[in-house]
């Protein structure tokens, strides 16, 4: 027997998944952006750039794929923020608020959809990366470990985008809110080694949340040192998820009509 909050969350998730599969353009758009970056970096720039030890198209594809996968989470954030913001303008949301439904369920449905959507996008982008020369381990345990880190990170960014979608005054504002995140894989270890950056940028790059996530994924999938990055990635993800959850809950409990 499920608790009412869980049952309501499952109902809301079913609703959101139906929306997602009936209007799959969001998924396509979400995959398109990371794939474009992948192709751009591998085929246009890949012949000339690439950190020491990762030069050459195939080697560079292998180096950047973890960063490209992290970009999927950013692209999915936009889609989640937009769907939350537009859902809030729908009459059905006012109906839900006057029903005896666990409040968290209305947000959980969006979070569940966001995570599923991100994971689907990551799988698709990884498959395309393999075609462009990405070479990864064949160890199932390493793949599972990387999947766990990435799903947790997707969960965190999804809660963040739910909060951004709730905070936005319009759907247009919601679609722009997560955009600055796009810079983070570049200002991190996604495309170059952070050691090559000027001191101030390098300091930021090494401590921002995308770097440990990308480094852990890279370590697990392509070999290489992980060190404290796994713990950092998990800590960052949990902190972002918790902070965003509290923020989203606060935003959602405001009166929906404010003028």
């Amino acid at each position, binding site marked *: 027997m499920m608790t*009412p909050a869980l*049952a*309501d969350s499952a*109902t809301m998730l*079913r*609703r959101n998944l*139906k*929306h997602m599969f*009936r*209007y799959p353009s969001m998924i396509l758009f979400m995959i398109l952006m990371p794939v474009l970056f992948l192709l751009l970096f591998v085929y246009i720039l890949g012949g000339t750039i690439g950190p020491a030890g990762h030069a050459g198209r195939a080697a560079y594809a292998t180096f950047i794929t973890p960063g490209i996968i992290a970009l999927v989470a950013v692209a999915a954030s936009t889609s989640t923020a937009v769907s939350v913001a537009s859902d809030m303008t*729908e*009459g*059905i949301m*006012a*109906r*839900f*608020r*006057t*029903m*005896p*439904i666990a409040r968290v369920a209305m947000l959980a449905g969006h979070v569940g959809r966001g995570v599923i959507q991100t994971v689907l996008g990551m799988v698709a982008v990884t498959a395309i990366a393999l075609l462009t020369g990405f070479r990864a381990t064949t160890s199932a345990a390493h793949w599972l470990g990387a999947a766990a880190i990435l799903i947790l990170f997707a969960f965190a960014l999804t809660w963040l985008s739910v909060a951004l979608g709730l905070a936005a005054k319009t759907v247009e504002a919601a679609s722009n809110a997560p955009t600055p995140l796009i810079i983070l894989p570049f200002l991190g270890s996604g495309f170059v080694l952070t050691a090559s950056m000027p001191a101030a940028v390098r300091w930021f790059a090494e401590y921002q949340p995308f770097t440990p996530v990308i480094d852990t994924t890279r370590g697990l999938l392509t070999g290489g040192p992980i060190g404290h990055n796994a713990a950092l990635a998990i800590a960052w993800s949990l902190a972002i998820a918790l902070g965003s959850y509290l923020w989203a809950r606060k935003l959602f409990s405001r*009166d*929906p*009509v*404010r*003028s």
Partner: protein
Amino acid sequence: MTSPSPRETAAIVATGLRKSYGEHLVLDGIDLTVQPGTVFALLGPNGAGKTTTVQILSTLIHADGGHATLAGYDLNREPARVREVIGVTGQYSAVDKLLTGRENLMMMADLYHLGRARARARTEELLGQFDLTEAAGKLATTYSGGMQRKLDLAMTLVSNPRIIFLDEPTAGLDPRSRRTMWQVVKDLTRGGVTIFLTTQYLEEADQLADQIALLDHGTLIAEGTPEELKRMIPGGHIRLRFTDAGTLGKARAILARPAYTAGQVGTAGQAYAAQADEEALTLEVPTGGSVPELRGILARLEDHGLDVAELTVHTPDLDDVFLALTSN
């Protein structure tokens, strides 16, 4: 779904409800009482505060001040209990347009934890009741306005709520759909449900409500049964159109004199202060609009050989009610 609370007497009791948005005062202390099993109509023009009242009483937004109980449950302290006994059909369509009609109803049944078998049975029952079975498999986005309204109301009824809020249930509907909606409301009250509806149309309140409250600029300016309210408002008028200005002038003069013609009936002997419109060649005669009175007026004009080109009867509407009550 829930047993009546011991505190229950009236279905809805509100005292001193206040709400403002910034400088704009929307509700300025509303008191109202709705008896169980009756239809209460909140009547008023756009911007009077009708929707805000519904939003507060249905737990969607908080009042700045005042107090209310629904089915005995305190709105502020027990919103979860209130939500279990109410159903709301708002002014704007509250159906999920990306789901089919059937999926919308099943979703509601799931959210009320009816269980698979009961959820299916209730869904099919409501689809049948609202004549939506044929369209049940289509996305709600393809429905007409009237069908969306019906689906909306069906969704509200899934849980068999004891108190139903209908915010302008017939706004934007064609006359046929409006009639259907009225019939649905009448059927519901037979089942003992309490209905709180808002409307801009006096006729609608008249048709459906046991009790009507008039809301204007956030204040209740009158309250009573439809009959009581109608006694408070002035009668309507008839409009007579003539073919030329000469006839118009003569007609006005004739009706302005008290007539003592033998054998005339009713109030036909009355003197009327009729308003003439020289441009439109029309004469507006204030009257209750009863058949004997109309016959008397026409007879007086005919006695003087005056031909009336056209006659229209204007019964009192919300405008008249508001003009009458707000001008005092």
